[in-house]
């Protein structure tokens, strides 16, 4: 659905997140991360026991690192916990569960979640620790892992520009996982740097069409 009426406040937006929810958060490190929304989630929501789907779990005390310090993350699904030593420590102390996924599989599984694909066969990870417990099959002599889609209750994404309807345009390498996550959640909340009138984004260059976006929030 497109946006019904203008942008909402960050606090109101994150009230869509309940304890126990799975939340996707865009960004590669902090680049392209929806920092205004993450701050609102840290400061004005008390949802806990969250499963976070994000390439990294922020940095110490920054981005998702804030939620981690608050003890509100139950589980992380990520390709690279290592960029936040506090996340590594929390995993080792048994405070959060970690599901490590190769980055391309992580991206593809989120895309699959948004695209109604119930599984896909990838050669990546076959025969390694990260394929343990997963179905493998050999086709033409090559081993493949059957990977399942990743879905979320809420996706928090960041785009440099949005229009009134909720169409999104991402700038440079701040795109990364954002357009994928926007497709794979029940509710998608987009933090945008600016909102332009409908028709101002070039129709061929819209990265996320508005049907994926439920709410817009302006970056602070």
């Amino acid at each position: 659905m497109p946006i019904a009426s203008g942008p909402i406040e960050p606090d109101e937006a994150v009230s869509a997140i309940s304890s126990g929810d799975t939340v996707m958060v865009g960004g590669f490190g902090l680049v392209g991360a929806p920092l205004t929304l993450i701050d609102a989630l840290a400061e004005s929501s008390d949802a806990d026991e969250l499963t976070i789907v994000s390439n990294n779990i922020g940095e110490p005390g920054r981005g998702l690192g804030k939620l981690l310090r608050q003890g509100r993350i139950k589980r992380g699904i990520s390709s690279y916990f290592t960029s936040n030593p506090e996340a590594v420590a929390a995993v080792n102390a048994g405070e959060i569960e970690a599901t490590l996924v190769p980055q391309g599989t992580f991206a593809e599984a989120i895309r699959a979640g948004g695209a109604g694909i119930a599984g896909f066969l990838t050669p990546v990870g076959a025969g390694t620790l990260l394929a343990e417990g997963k179905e493998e099959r050999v086709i033409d002599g090559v081993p493949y892992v059957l990977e399942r889609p990743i879905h979320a209750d809420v996706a928090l994404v960041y785009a440099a520009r949005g229009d009134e309807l909720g169409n999104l345009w991402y700038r440079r390498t701040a795109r990364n996982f954002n357009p994928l996550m926007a497709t794979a959640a029940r509710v998608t909340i987009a933090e945008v740097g600016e909102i332009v009138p409908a028709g101002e984004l070039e129709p061929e260059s819209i990265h996320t069409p508005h049907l994926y976006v439920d709410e817009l929030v302006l970056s602070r």
Partner: protein
Amino acid sequence: MTGDVKSAIAARAAQELRPGEIVNLGIGIPNLIPGLLGGGTDVFLHTENGLLGVGPRPSEEELDPDLIDAAKRPVTALPGAAYFDSAQSFAMIRGGHIDVAVLGALQVSISGDIANWAVPGKDVLGVGGAMDLVVGARRVIVTMTSTSSTGEPKIVRECTYPLTARGVADVVVTELAVFRFREGALVLTELLDDATVDEVRAATGAPFDVDLEDRRAA
């Protein structure tokens, strides 16, 4: 089937659409809906060849060979429209991001099975996006005449034509009636154009419940 009948079916189906919804319209009766929506800005029209925000038919000057809908007719694009490739377009469909698909059918069964792409004994050489749409859209509204050109009821116990998908229809609008599928049961919810329940029974090849109290969208 006269144009009036088609228009009446399309008009009733249009009432099922809610403002802001993302809607994909099939070829035939569904394609009459935009003309009835008054500019089409109420809902957002998706066409599976890669456009969200289909606008009205182009004037002579607006004609653009690069801008068509899935029926291969020239269209326009409204402000805020977006173009995308076919994988992304069907990811929208399969992934449940299209609120409503309105499409024609050859047969609909009392289990909500739809047959709308092939006739047995004839060519089964064109399926297009029919299967994707009925499986993926959140609501599937079938628009069709109650009987075929040879007088056979199109609502049947079991589809005898090749299936498009099983258990996917939500609403059927004919020239006589509106049916809804509720918890797996086919329910007549509205009589159209002064039709009687008996007339509907005569034109329907399967039993159905009657609950005319439901006039939600009337």
